[in-house]
């Protein structure tokens, strides 16, 4: 059963269309991420689901019920804010118990539920602490507990790990995944960190400029990106524009740097120009004289298990190549034979290109 359905949702602030025609379905119990660069409308989308913003047009449906006119305090969602927003005048216990007290549950039950959820987020024994006395990671877990204890149909998280250092981020990513599995709650997780979204999500949506570019599993998004933006935002890629030479039995054949490539051709004809994404790890460094082309290393980045090269071809084009670091890396200025299998690239639609943030 679908927990959340957004259909044709728009949000306009003044004259800015911040969220544009968003369609989205999140299934029950799913860990779903909204991934995109800063300012692409992720928070606004999440706030419309929570009820902190009203869509300019379109519908938000939660568990089959249209939510547009349901106020925030009547929605079966809870939000973990980007800035945590723990109540500074209440201790950890009272922060977590806030929603339960509003439901007028008996004291003993509140105590039990708060105790249980603090156990889930590994904060047993911190009940009487002031929130100002907690570390960033602990505060984040209190914020998650404060939302989760209300057993929301959907937990909404807005870049909850953004402010933490890398090690803590990785630890809490695993914790969050464990909590999500243990409680079976549907999570909608907003992040601008593609590695985080890939490793945690069952499915994710990539947003760009208020629009959704693609929705799919992490593997689908990486292996079969639909647009140039998705291909360049998730991982790295070589974007290639080429003309189709000929089409045979459902495959379009073309070449790049003189090396053949082919993609499935449902609606393609010879002479058309297409855009392809060729992942750096699909380009091989081959033995001298093997089939392929020669290219010169302009930059080598040793990354531990792999090496990332920027290489220049004879026609002065740059390719990014990633290989296992199973031998001494090539140095700047060295040249090598490179090549790829004909099915190494996927066809994509041209949208914008994500800036290389690394």
């Amino acid at each position, binding site marked *: 059963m679908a927990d959340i359905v957004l259909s044709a949702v728009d949000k306009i602030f003044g004259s800015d269309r911040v969220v544009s025609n968003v369609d989205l379905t999140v299934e029950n119990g799913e860990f779903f991420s909204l991934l995109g660069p800063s300012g692409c409308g992720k928070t606004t989308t999440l706030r419309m689901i929570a009820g*902190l913003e009203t869509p300019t047009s379109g519908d938000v449906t939660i568990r089959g019920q249209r939510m547009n006119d349901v106020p*925030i305090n009547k929605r079966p969602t809870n939000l973990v804010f980007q800035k945590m927003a723990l109540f*500074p005048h209440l201790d950890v216990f009272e922060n977590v118990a806030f*929603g339960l007290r*509003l439901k007028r549950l008996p004291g003993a039950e509140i105590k039990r539920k708060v105790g249980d959820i603090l156990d889930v987020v590994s904060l047993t024994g911190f009940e009487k602490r002031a929130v100002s006395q907690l570390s960033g990671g602990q505060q984040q877990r209190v914020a998650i507990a404060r939302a989760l204890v209300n057993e929301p149909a959907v937990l909404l998280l807005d870049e909850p790990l953004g402010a933490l250092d890398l090690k803590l981020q990785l630890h809490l990513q695993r914790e969050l995944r464990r909590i999500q599995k243990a409680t079976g709650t549907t999570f909608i997780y907003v992040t601008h960190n593609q590695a985080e979204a890939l490793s945690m999500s069952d499915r994710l949506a990539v947003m760009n400029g208020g629009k959704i570019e693609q929705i799919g599993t992490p593997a689908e998004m990486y292996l079969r990106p639909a647009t140039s933006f998705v291909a360049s935002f998730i991982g790295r890629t070589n974007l290639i524009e080429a003309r189709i030479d000929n089409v045979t039995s459902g495959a379009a054949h073309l070449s790049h740097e003189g090396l053949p490539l082919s993609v499935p051709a449902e609606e393609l004809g010879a002479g058309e120009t297409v855009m392809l994404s060729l992942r750096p790890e699909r380009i091989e460094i081959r033995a001298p004289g093997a089939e392929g082309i020669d290219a010169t290393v302009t930059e080598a980045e040793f990354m531990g298990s792999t090496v990332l090269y920027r290489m220049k071809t004879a026609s002065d084009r740059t390719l990014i190549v990633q290989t296992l670091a199973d031998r001494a890396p090539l140095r700047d200025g060295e040249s090598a034979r490179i090549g790829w299998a004909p099915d190494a690239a996927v066809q994509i639609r041209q949208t914008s290109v994500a800036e290389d943030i690394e």
Partner: protein
Amino acid sequence: MSGATATPLAAPLAAPGRVLPRWVRLALLIGPGFFLIVLPFFGAMVMLGTYSLNLRDANGMGMGLSLWMDFASDGFNWSVLWNSVRIAGISTILSVALAYPVAAALLRVRSRAFLAFAYIALFSPLLMSMVSRAYGWLLLLSDNGFVNQTLGLLFGIDPIRLVFNETGVIIAIVHVVLPYAVLPILNTMTQVPPVYREAALDLGASGWTVFRRVTLPLTLPGVIVAAEIIFALSASAFVTPSLLGGGRVLTLSQLVYENIGMIEWGMAAVQAIVLLVTALAVLFVLERVNRATHAARES
């Protein structure tokens, strides 16, 4: 390291001769305010103390606590002190209760023009001289003044006594102290990020519950500062209770004035000290409440 080889960054530290010593700089900053506020205050306290203990033996009663005994044994003094405390207390509660929604509204105003208008309206009481303001209230509130005439026209009722009693005094005090109540509350409100309100709503709270359980506790420090200022101002008010009370509402500050007029410096000093200590005691209690709410936040 010698001064000549010092890097530009280290230069200010390496050339202490060019700047005045730290304590001199501090003294220059604090000095003028200190001489204007602290010295006269302590000077006055010493003078009041010597007069109240009759150290000059101006009336031949002998030095000592006799004036204090006189004050304490006269029930009239206590009832006037109670008047002062009651009027100040009621004015404080009313001012803060009126100021809080005003501050909350000002926080939400977007239009700059309207905000400017609101501030002028808010501070208008302070632009008038105390005496003309009090007479203005007398005209408004008297038996055949504007308020009673309007009420009479609308409801056909007899005039309500609004002057020469406590009601009039309190109305006029609240009028003038209101801006002092709005400012600290508004200041605290601007420091509470809206995200707390959103978080409480998200957890299921109604608007009223958000106010009671989040907004009010977080803005309480501003409310307490406002109450402290208002209580101090209204407990020592003199012109307003004299004119609007018409001699029928006696406060301790009026007794002090009368005694000075009758050259009873000693008794005036005792009463002034009692008034000051009472105000300080109330401030102390309020400050304790303030600390307690802060402590709850940090412990």
